[in-house]
């Protein structure tokens, strides 16, 4: 094989390896991006939704307190009662949607627990509201019926958020480990290919340099017609082999010239 063909093949081989590395890195980047997007769209967004539902639940409790504090005025009572029921429905809808969307079984169970506790609390609010009306809108007895009973359902949100955050952290760690593993495999393969490519390149290079050295030795001797005992052992089907063959001709011609002059 010609030296130029060998060098072009090695160069193209290196190009293919580097191109392959770039393509593989882009695909790896895309895979990592997809993985983290999945985490963001999953547990992280769900944890944020749980926090929002918790805030809305606290607003619902504040609306209840507004009913008790301002319920003496019929207009305000009607206004805060409507607000309370709207907020109550909003919280139930948010938590219902969230419970349906989460994959984590613990978080799902906690949200279901909340819905059960919230239903029970709604019944208690309803009973307290009835008592509130019967007692001439004196809030003390009604408040006593439900006072502090929102704390336990409220705490469930903290557990849900912790659970979802933990899931997000675990998923991110798994994604990182997967990315590192894939990167190591990729670098090992590419490193191995580049090593083989470098070995072939060095082999060709040193072969060429060695034969060029032989060629120079022969050339130096031919330049001063020092052909006594000269042996040109430069073969091969490449450019250097071709030059070696030409030098054999020159050597033979010099020998013939000296023989003719000696005769």
């Amino acid at each position: 094989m010609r030296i130029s063909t060998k060098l072009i093949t090695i160069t193209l081989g290196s190009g293919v390896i580097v191109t392959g590395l770039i393509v593989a890195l882009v695909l790896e980047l895309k895979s990592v991006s997809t993985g983290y997007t999945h985490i963001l769209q999953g547990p992280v967004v769900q944890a944020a939704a749980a926090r929002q539902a918790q805030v809305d639940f606290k607003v619902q409790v504040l609306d209840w307190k507004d009913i008790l504090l301002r319920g003496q005025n019929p207009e305000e009572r009607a206004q805060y009662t409507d607000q309370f029921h709207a907020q109550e429905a909003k919280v139930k809808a948010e938590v219902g949607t969230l419970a349906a969307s989460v994959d984590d079984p613990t978080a799902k169970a906690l949200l279901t627990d909340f819905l059960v506790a919230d239903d029970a609390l709604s019944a208690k609010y309803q009973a307290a509201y009835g008592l509130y009306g019967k007692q001439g809108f004196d809030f003390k007895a009604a408040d006593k019926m439900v006072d502090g009973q929102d704390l336990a359902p409220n705490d469930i949100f903290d557990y849900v958020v912790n659970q979802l955050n933990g899931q997000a952290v675990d998923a991110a760690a798994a994604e990182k480990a997967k990315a590192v593993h894939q990167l190591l495999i990729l670098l090992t393969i590419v490193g191995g290919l580049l090593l083989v490519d470098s070995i072939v390149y060095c082999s060709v290079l040193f072969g060429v340099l060695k034969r060029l050295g032989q060629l120079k030795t022969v050339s130096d001797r031919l330049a001063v017609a020092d052909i006594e005992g000269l042996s040109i052992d430069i073969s091969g089907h490449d450019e250097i082999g071709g030059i070696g063959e030409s030098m054999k001709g020159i050597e033979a011609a010099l020998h013939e010239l000296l023989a003719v002059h000696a005769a």
Partner: protein
Amino acid sequence: MGIALVQRYEQIGKEMGSVGRMKLAMLTKLSSMKAAEAEDSVSNLKMVDDAIAQLRKGV
């Protein structure tokens, strides 16, 4: 012994002088001294004859 080969070198020497012999050696990569040591094989004779034909054509 390459007697027939050497005869060809001598023949081309008569035709073209020492330059012809030198060119023949260059084309065949074989001096007449080495030709004398080589066999008069079919391949060697063909190689020298081909080179002589080239020289006669003026290549």
